[in-house]
């Protein structure tokens, strides 16, 4: 267990509102990732971070931004949520060729 927690675990929000998901780790790992999981698509990479204030885009980054001001926290923000962003979001960390996942956040945009 790499000590990853995601919050919130569930959220329902309205279209057009901003939403921030938090990923917190206790192991001081350098690499952190945000994915979304949708049926038929597996896990698609949204953004990732390779250090404090060092982030890069993944394959589905439009409509999302991230921040990493501390090693332990990686925040994912939906600036203006849309129904197409309804999904399950996973945070992950990797270290030494091993990856560990948070429990997931189910986000529903109505």
């Amino acid at each position, binding site marked *: 267990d790499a000590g990853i927690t995601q919050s919130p675990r569930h959220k329902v929000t309205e279209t057009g509102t901003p939403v921030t998901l938090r990923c917190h780790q206790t192991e001081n790992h350098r690499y952190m990732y945000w994915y979304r999981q949708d049926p038929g698509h597996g896990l698609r990479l949204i953004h990732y971070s390779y250090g404090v204030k060092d982030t*890069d885009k993944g*394959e589905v980054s439009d409509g999302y931004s991230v921040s990493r001001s501390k090693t332990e926290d990686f925040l994912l923000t939906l600036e203006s949520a849309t129904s197409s962003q309804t999904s*399950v979001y*996973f945070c992950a960390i990797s270290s030494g060729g*091993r990856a560990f996942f948070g429990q997931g956040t189910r986000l529903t945009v109505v």
Partner: protein
Amino acid sequence: AQTVTQSQPEMSVQEAETVTLSCTYDTSESNYYLFWYKQPPSRQMILVIRQEAYKQQNATENRFSVNFQKAAKSFSLKISDSQLGDTAMYFCAFSGINDMRFGAGTRLTVKP
């Protein structure tokens, strides 16, 4: 960018039989890791097996083994003596220098 392809959306197998899940990937990197993850209905991501690209020997973990063909960029998972508890989504994943990419998944059903 790296891509991972799982061409079998769904598979089924009889209990105690053997099943093989396919995965291909594309990358220009020479050092990387490959994984198979299992996701039961609980949504938890469970590492099944891991392969380091520089190792020619195929990884094995009890009933799970891989056939890693680096030149062909192929990484299949063989499950022997399938059990009902193996029913789940299975994801193939690639981890390179920075990012980690997943395939679309294969839903495996083990039938009694």
